[in-house]
């Protein structure tokens, strides 16, 4: 009962604010006679979303698959790279500045180039873009986590005469988990953005991005917005999944306030 009430108290304010914003949007568009190409009303977008729901779901799944495959591959590569960089200091010293610089580049700009490397029916270019985008936050955060060990933990493990492997397995790796998940949370949102946006540059036309561009090109603005809503939902889904994964992987954090 108490728990139930608390959930309501947490959820109610953002829901109310969201509904108010939608209402204001509707009023603004209808009352202000705003042209549909400038901004369609939420009700028009909602109606379009509902009538096109099968297509929205299908193309969301296509983009979602690209984002998921890219996310998993990029995250795995990030973890492996972080392990290597933390194990061999020379690798870290040589690679971290380069990685930080690359991280500042708009990776998405590589999409058209990748498109030319593979067949036009291939999903690989988009997945490659996602993987590269995901790699950086996962690598940098995990590496930082692996490096950061509390002085008291180091001394303690020394006092137990613990070997390098025991130290890595019992201190370094679990200690890096929160950092890894910080990286993965950033990466989950980026993965969806990268998967959708990379479709803007041609290639296989089966995802959300291509639908948004083609709907906008034929002046079906409400429809374009309906696909944008689909992209938002996909992004939220990815983020929520990572949060759930985080809770499962780090039960000691979930139970902190009980």
């Amino acid at each position, binding site marked *: 009962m108490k728990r139930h009430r608390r959930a309501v108290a947490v959820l109610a304010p953002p829901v109310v604010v969201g509904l108010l914003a939608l209402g204001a949007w509707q009023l603004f568009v209808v009352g202000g006679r705003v042209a549909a190409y400038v901004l369609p009303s939420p009700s028009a977008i909602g109606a379009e979303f509902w009538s096109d729901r099968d297509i929205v779901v299908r193309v969301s799944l296509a983009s979602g698959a690209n984002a998921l495959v890219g996310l998993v591959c990029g995250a795995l590569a990030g973890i492996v790279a972080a392990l290597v960089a933390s194990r061999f200091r020379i690798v870290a010293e040589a690679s971290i500045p380069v990685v930080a610089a690359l991280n500042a580049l708009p990776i998405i700009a590589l999409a058209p180039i990748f498109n030319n490397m593979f067949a036009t029916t291939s999903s690989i270019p988009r997945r490659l873009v996602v993987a590269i985008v995901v790699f950086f936050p996962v690598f940098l955060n995990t590496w930082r986590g692996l490096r950061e060990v509390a002085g008291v933990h180091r001394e303690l493990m020394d006092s137990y005469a613990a070997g390098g492997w025991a130290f890595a397995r019992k201190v370094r790796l679990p200690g890096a988990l929160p950092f890894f998940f910080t990286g993965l949370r950033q990466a989950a949102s980026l993965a969806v953005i990268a998967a959708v946006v990379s479709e803007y540059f041609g290639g296989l036309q089966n995802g959300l991005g291509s639908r948004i561009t083609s709907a906008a090109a034929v002046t079906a603005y409400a429809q374009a917005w309906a696909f944008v809503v689909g992209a938002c939902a996909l992004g939220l889904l990815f983020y929520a999944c990572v949060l759930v994964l985080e809770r499962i992987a*780090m039960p000691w954090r979930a139970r902190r306030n009980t």
Partner: protein
Amino acid sequence: MNAVDCRGLGKTYNQGSRDEVAALDDVDLTVEAREFVALIGPSGCGKSTLLRLVADLVEPTAGTVRVAGKPARVARRDQEYGIVFQQAGLFEWRTVQHNVELPLELRGTGRRARADRAREMLELVGLADFAGRYPAQLSGGMAQRVAIARALAVHPPLLLMDEPFGALDEMTRERMQDELLRICARAGTSVLFVTHSIPEAVYLADRVVVMSARPGRVTAVVDVDLGPRTEAVRTDESFFAAVTLVRQALRGNPAVGEGDPALAGER
């Protein structure tokens, strides 16, 4: 056999370079079996360094350390001591029980034996009900008790403590002092205890080793003979006399050895 034997111990950091610091110079220190020795001195007197030398976490630049009759390195490998720092240093991803099991795990003790021993240790520090909790759910005093249970898990003959109660409030601190004495008496553990609190040193220790700074040296050793420690001792005349004696020794006043005949001084 003495629990700790240090002879002519010296430690200079950054030896040979321009920022060379002599932390310790020519220190002799003995902790007898089942004896409780407190190290006290101003900050920078090298008391923590001395503790780390005994623990073999730092290497001496002069002299020798023997723990349980063995060279310090061998003693560390054989887990002849348990250590507790000012920070509890629990691993937040392990439950209380698994934190206590860690030193046993690293020793290769079997799962069942580990669980039994951890239970026993948590019982000893009065936290058996909290075995399944995570450190984030504990108060500072409870976390420090878990750290003590962890240090005692391998039944070491020696306990090394570096201001373990320094971050606790006064009430908790006094309760922890009584518990520590009870636990060590029961387990028959020798203790080397670093503190900067004079009353704490006097209340806990059989012998208070007073150090001075730059370079760290032992300037006085005050024997404390107050009998079994109870609440009454904290307000007893002889307790305050001993506190005064240690305070004078810290100030470099050569009155040590005089005063209360119950308190015999050395050096």
